C-alpha cells in the first residue's frame, strides 16, 4: 500500500518536473517562464521527496531529504526573485 502511494507520488513529481521544463521551453517571456518553473520544479521535487520519504526506513534519511527540499525551495524562491529583479533592472537601465 505504502509502496503504491510512494510510487504514485514519485511519478507525479516527475510529471511536474516535465511540465515545468516544458513550460520553461514553450512560454513566451521571462516572467511567465519564471512563474511556471518555480511552481513546477518545487512541487516536483516536493512530491519526489514525499514519495522517497515514505519509501525509506531510516529517520536520518527522511530528515536529510526534508533539508534538501527546504534548501531547494528557499534557494529557488530567493534566486527566482533575484533573477527577476536583475532582469527588471537590466530592462530599466537599458
Amino acid at each position, binding site marked *: 500500500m505504502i509502496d503504491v502511494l510512494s510510487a504514485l507520488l514519485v511519478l507525479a513529481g516527475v510529471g511536474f518536473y516535465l511540465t515545468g521544463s516544458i513550460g520553461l521551453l514553450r512560454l513566451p517571456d521571462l516572467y511567465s517562464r519564471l512563474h511556471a518553473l518555480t511552481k513546477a520544479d518545487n512541487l516536483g521535487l516536493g512530491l519526489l521527496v514525499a514519495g522517497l520519504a515514505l519509501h525509506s526506513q531510516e529517520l536520518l534519511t527522511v530528515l536529510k531529504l526534508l*533539508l534538501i527540499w527546504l*534548501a531547494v525551495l*528557499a*534557494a529557488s524562491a*530567493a*534566486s527566482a*526573485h*533575484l533573477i527577476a529583479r536583475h532582469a527588471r533592472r537590466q530592462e530599466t537601465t537599458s
Partner: protein
Amino acid sequence: MSDTSLLVLDGLLVISLVTLAWTALAGSDARRSVILFMAFGLVLAAAWVRLLAPDVALAEAAIGAGLAGALLLAAVREQSRQPLPARIVSKRSHNKPGVNIALQWAVSVLCAVLAGTLAWALAHALNSAPQNALPRAVSANLEASGVSNPVTAVLLNFRAYDTLLELAVLLTAVLGIFALGPARPGYQSAGPVFDGLARWLVPVLILTAGYLLWVGAHAPGGAFQAGATLAAASVVLRLAGRHQIGLPQGPALRVVMAAGVGMFVLVGLGLLVAGRPFLGYPPPWAGGLILMIESAATLAIAATLVLAFLGGQPRPLAVRVARGRIAATPIPTGKPVSPEGIRSTEPHAAEACHRIQETQKRC
C-alpha cells in the same frame, strides 16, 4: 538500472556535455559563456555520479559549478563595466584577416589531430584488459590507511605528497594574487530577500562543510569539498554586501592561509623525527592524523578560495571593527548590517580607501 535506460541516460548526458562545451566556447558574449560553463559543470557532476565517482561529483558541484562560476561571473561583471577599449582583447585578432583565417585553420587542424591521437590511444587502452593491480593494492592496504573511503585514503595517505604539493599550489596562487594589489570593491547590500537567503544559507553551508569533512573518512567527502563549501558561505556574505565575511585579519589570515601546508609539513617532519618515513602515519594514529591535516587543509582551502574571489588583498577592516559596529565573528550574528550602519562609517572607510587608491589610482 537496466542496460537500455543506462544507455539512454549516457546518451543524454554526453550530448548535453558536448553541446554545452561547444556553445560555451563559441560566440563573444562572455557572460553567456560563463553561464553555459556553469551549466556544463552541473551536468558534469551528474556524469561523475553516473560513473560512480561521487567524491569527484561533490568537488565538481562545489568548485566547478559553484565557486569557479562565481569567480568568473565576478570577473565578467567587472569587465563589462569598463569602457570597451580597456577590455582585454589580444591585438592579434585585429590585423590581417588572411593570416588570421590561415592561423585559425592551422590551429583547428592541430587540435583535431591532437584529439584524434588522444582518442586513438584511448581506444587501444580501453580495448585491452583493464589494469587492476593498483586498485587491488589500494583495497589491500585500506585497512592500514586509517580511513575506509578509498579516495580519501589515496589522497591523504598513499599519495599524500601530491596533496601537500597541491596545497602549495593553492598557496602560491593566493600569494600571487596578493602581490597584484587590493581586492575588488565589495557588493552593495542587496535588500531583504537576499539577506534572508544569506541568513539561513550561511549557517547551513558551514554545517555542511563540517559534515563533509567528518564524513570524508568513510564516505564521499573530505577537505576539498568541505573547504569549497565553507568558502561558499563567505562568498554569500560578500555578495550580500557584508564587510565582515569571516576572514581573519592580518597575521591571523596568513596563519590560516599557511595552515594546510603547515600542518602537512609539521606532521611529516614530526614523523620523520620519530623515526618513521615522511608522512608515514603509524596505522593506529592514521585516522586521527588525517583528520587533523584535513581540518587545517579545509580552513586553508576555504580562505584561499575566498581570497581568490575577492581578487586581491582584503582591505583593512580595523576602522569599522574598532567602532564596534560589526562583530568580528566569522558566523553572522543574525542581525544583518543595515545600509545606514555602513553609511555612518563612511568617512572612516573613505579615509582607509584613499590610502589604497594611492597605490592603485583607480578602483
